[in-house]
């Protein structure tokens, strides 16, 4: 009788453990992407500040802003709109660049946030939030300064 009870407990524990294990694996595998729009920014700065950080020392800046798992820092960047375009995924792209800077910050919006910038014009000063994908630097092959790239962007405010 005692053995039967022990077996029953062991079976219940094994099934419970199995369900928990499968549940954990399924949760980890199907975990949704980080919601950049709903997450608070890690840093708030101007486009000129981050460009100067990157052009001064790219390795230090990459170390500060990029994360090994791709969920890199979320930045709030303020600057002047110098270009508005659309990418191949039909999302709006705004370049925040000051005339005196060698590079700017390119912010790609999303299907949910594209409409917020439809009335913006070149020359306006705005603050955007987005996740950094890569930094600014001079590329010898392109023979161009590459911009800081932000994606999953949202409009925070406009002056």
């Amino acid at each position, binding site marked *: 009788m005692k053995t039967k009870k022990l077996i029953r407990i062991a079976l219940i524990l094994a099934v419970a453990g199995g369900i928990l294990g499968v549940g954990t694996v399924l949760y*980890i*595998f*199907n*975990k*949704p*992407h*980080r919601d950049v729009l709903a997450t608070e920014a890690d840093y708030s700065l101007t486009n000129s500040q981050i460009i100067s950080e990157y052009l001064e020392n790219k390795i230090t800046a*990459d170390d500060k802003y*990029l*994360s*090994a*798992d*791709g*969920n*890199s820092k979320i930045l709030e960047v303020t600057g002047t709109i110098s270009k508005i*375009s*659309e*990418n*191949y*995924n039909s*999302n709006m*792209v705004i370049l925040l660049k000051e005339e005196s800077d060698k590079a700017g910050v*390119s912010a*790609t919006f999303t299907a949910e946030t594209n409409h917020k910038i439809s009335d913006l014009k070149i020359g306006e000063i705005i603050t955007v939030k987005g996740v950094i*994908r*890569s*930094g600014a630097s001079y*590329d010898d*092959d*392109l*023979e*161009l300064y*590459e911009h800081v*790239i932000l*994606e999953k962007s949202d409009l925070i405010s406009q002056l």
Partner: protein
Amino acid sequence: MKNKRLFSIALAVLMTASAFSRTGDKLVSSKSHIKFYSHTAMEDIEANNYASVSTLNTKTGDVVFSVPMQGFEFENASMQKHFNQEKFLDTKDHPKGKLVAKIANFDDIDFSNDGVYEVIVEGNLTIKGTTKSLKEKGTVRVKDGIVSIESKFPITLADYGISFAKGKPSTNIAKTVEVTVIGEYTAE
């Protein structure tokens, strides 16, 4: 004195003309699409990147793509995390992928008129700090003054130090993946 003045004017005109031609020769694209596609019996995996910068020199046929590796987006968040991590693409230490190539038969292309041209793209592809040569077919389109380039080619992941001996990645990720590269250019 008059000769000196004429010489100065000629020099100024020449310098201006040369500056314009240099700018005009290099087309820049920030409207791009890079896609990785992996097919196995277990599953198909796709990652898309819309944030690359590219240049195309219409005088030399030089083509460059600079690809921010953290810009690849997967449907599955867990896969995207793995893609970025050290044992996969190590995108923190190698944030950019790069294609530096030349259109071998660029003399065939008339950039001033609409047309579709089959081209051979030859050069080097750098991923995760490893550079390998490639020679692939591509298509250049000229339409209403807009130039675009497209190429689709296979890459073997192990050539770039990306290999999986065991676990799910070894069965679910193809050893050779298909890369699609598209860029649309405007004058700089």
